[in-house]
């Protein structure tokens, strides 16, 4: 299952990373005067996504992983930090007018495939619209050809173009959502929990499709999930988020074989594993650094492709 496209570990693979996130922060204001307070959803997060790389962002609800996806999709303005796509500092240079160009490079697949497809339209509409908005003015014939191609890519028959979302199963709907994202030939797809609402038996199919798209088309992906096993299954790199901080990152297999940060260890130990011989008692929350004071943000390199945030000294 070796990817045809290079990942960060291969020498001379790509010149510069496709996406560079630098010191990204996001604060949310809560309440109104005089009870206003601030919640820091994302705290000083930096990472790269290479061309053709699948990066998984894992963490619990409220850890800030979806906020990062929303900032990357430009649905949310960050409080601070930089987002560099293809060498261009997006928030510094791009204005609203240019967001069209941005979206032709960055597309999103959402968690709920029913909520993300307008029930009043046929499948054909969802794929035609991005092509018309972003593409050249295709002749009806060329357009139809493109639609069929798209459907075939995601493993659906062209007869489904005439159906409505409610006539499709959850897995098929999610495939349509992926086809829609692919229509503009993006360089990266942000997938926010794309399988969590699907039945167990179809999840693997969607994960395999994402992998295939990367292998065959070289699309980068940011895969956001709370399912560590699926991150290990498709992602080259996994990053762990805890309460707004990126606490650990590295090559997926390596990271999950030797988790360094206590929070990563907690997450991994919580995954039900029938093959585990000894019962794991859930560790006490406070011992995991979740409620501990934020550290200095200093990263320790554990290997060439694995790092973790320095754990704050419990004495403080």
């Amino acid at each position, binding site marked *: 299952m070796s990817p045809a496209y290079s990942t960060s570990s291969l020498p001379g693979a790509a010149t510069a990373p496709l996406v560079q996130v630098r010191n990204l922060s996001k604060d949310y204001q809560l309440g109104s005067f005089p009870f206003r307070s601030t919640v820091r959803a994302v705290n000083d997060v930096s990472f790269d996504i290479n061309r053709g790389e699948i990066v998984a962002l894992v963490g619990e609800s409220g850890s800030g992983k979806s906020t990062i996806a929303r900032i990357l999709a430009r649905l949310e303005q960050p409080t601070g930090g930089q987002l560099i796509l293809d060498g261009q500092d997006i928030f510094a240079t791009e204005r609203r007018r240019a967001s069209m160009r941005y979206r032709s490079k960055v597309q999103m697949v959402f968690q709920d495939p029913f909520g993300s497809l307008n029930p009043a339209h046929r499948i054909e509409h969802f794929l035609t619209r991005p092509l018309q908005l972003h593409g050249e003015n295709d002749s009806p014939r060329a357009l139809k050809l493109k639609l069929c191609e798209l459907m075939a890519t995601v493993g659906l028959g062209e007869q489904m173009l005439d159906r409505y979302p409610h006539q499709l199963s959850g897995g098929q709907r999610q495939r349509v959502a992926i086809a829609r994202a692919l229509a503009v030939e993006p360089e990266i797809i942000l997938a926010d929990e794309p399988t969590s609402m699907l039945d167990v038996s179809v*999840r693997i199919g969607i994960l395999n499709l994402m992998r295939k798209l990367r292998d065959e088309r070289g699309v980068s992906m940011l895969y956001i999930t*709370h399912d560590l096993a699926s991150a*290990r299954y498709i992602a080259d790199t996994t990053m762990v988020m805890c309460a707004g901080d990126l606490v650990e990152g590295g090559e997926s297999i390596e990271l999950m074989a030797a988790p360094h940060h206590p929070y990563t260890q907690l997450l991994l130990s919580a995954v039900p594993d029938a093959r585990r011989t000894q019962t794991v008692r859930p560790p006490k929350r406070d011992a995991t650094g979740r409620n501990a004071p934020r550290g200095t943000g200093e990263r320790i390199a554990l290997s060439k492709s694995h790092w973790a945030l320095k754990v704050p000294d419990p004495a403080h």
Partner: protein
Amino acid sequence: METLTELERGNIGPAAAGPVLSVKNLQVQYTAESGNVTAVDGVSFDIGAGEVFGLAGESGCGKSTIANAIMRLLQTPAKITGGSIELAGRNLLDLGEEELRRTRWRDVAMVFQSAMNSLNPVMTIGDQIVDVFTTHEKMSKQAARERAVELLKLVDISPDRLKSYPHQLSGGMRQRAVIAIALALKPSLLIMDEPTTALDVVVQQEIMHQIKELQQQLGFSILFITHDISLMVELSHRMAVMYAGKLVEVAPSKTMLDNPLHPYTNALMGAFPPLTGPRVELIGIPDAPPNMAHPPTGCRFHPRCPLAIDSCRTIEPPLLPGAENHEAACLLVPGYVVPRERSRR
């Protein structure tokens, strides 16, 4: 005053020695304009005293319908059309409304998937627990309050949370409160329908751990329903795998894990990527579960089964012992012989 910790193991009347729950040949149909759909078709299983029994399967296979049938919660268009459900030797299908009202929650209680939806948002947690006691037992409000405090302690919620409303609690705490309410009347059987699906993995583990401890401490039986086989194997003693309205395999959980006999069980287990070992390509299960209005002939899994042979299309295999304590419904199980009268039918 009696405390919960004094609950006697499996003390549920004259039939205490036998199974707590005995479901025999249960059939549930949904009536639709286009014809009847048999969602549960001839399902039989027993749950012993103090036993945790798991029921696994994909969405729509009928596992929640079984849970609702046991609680007698099915409403039109669903109807129990055959079989029996015996709780401590009493057929629940024969009970009238009033008897049913008294049996529910006292003898069998249920924890639903979404804790937020099973709690009343405009009542405090304390009031909701007190409600259970005053409805089912002649008890003063004061005594009921004392019992409520004990119950919350049982699930590690501090007693000052009695005055909290559901929205003031975290998801995990809400689910724990729901479990406390389910255990209030010391039922002999607790039905849990995907109790942790809506929760984060860390919270899920905490809750599962707590359920395990309470079960060992109090000795009630559990019917545990989930699609996550790993989770099920960790908790349950024995489990059944269900497909398209029928049980296809029943075995002790460890046996099922180590030596699944039915191809569907195998496929379901292979649908979860492992956390250790090399990266291997998984295939999942091709296609979707059958339309239950027109279930396939023969073995219902045959259209998706990688091992299907010709006979699978015509012979509907019943659940038969394949090994010790291990039943499966598949023609390909070594030594599996379809009884003659069945195969002719």
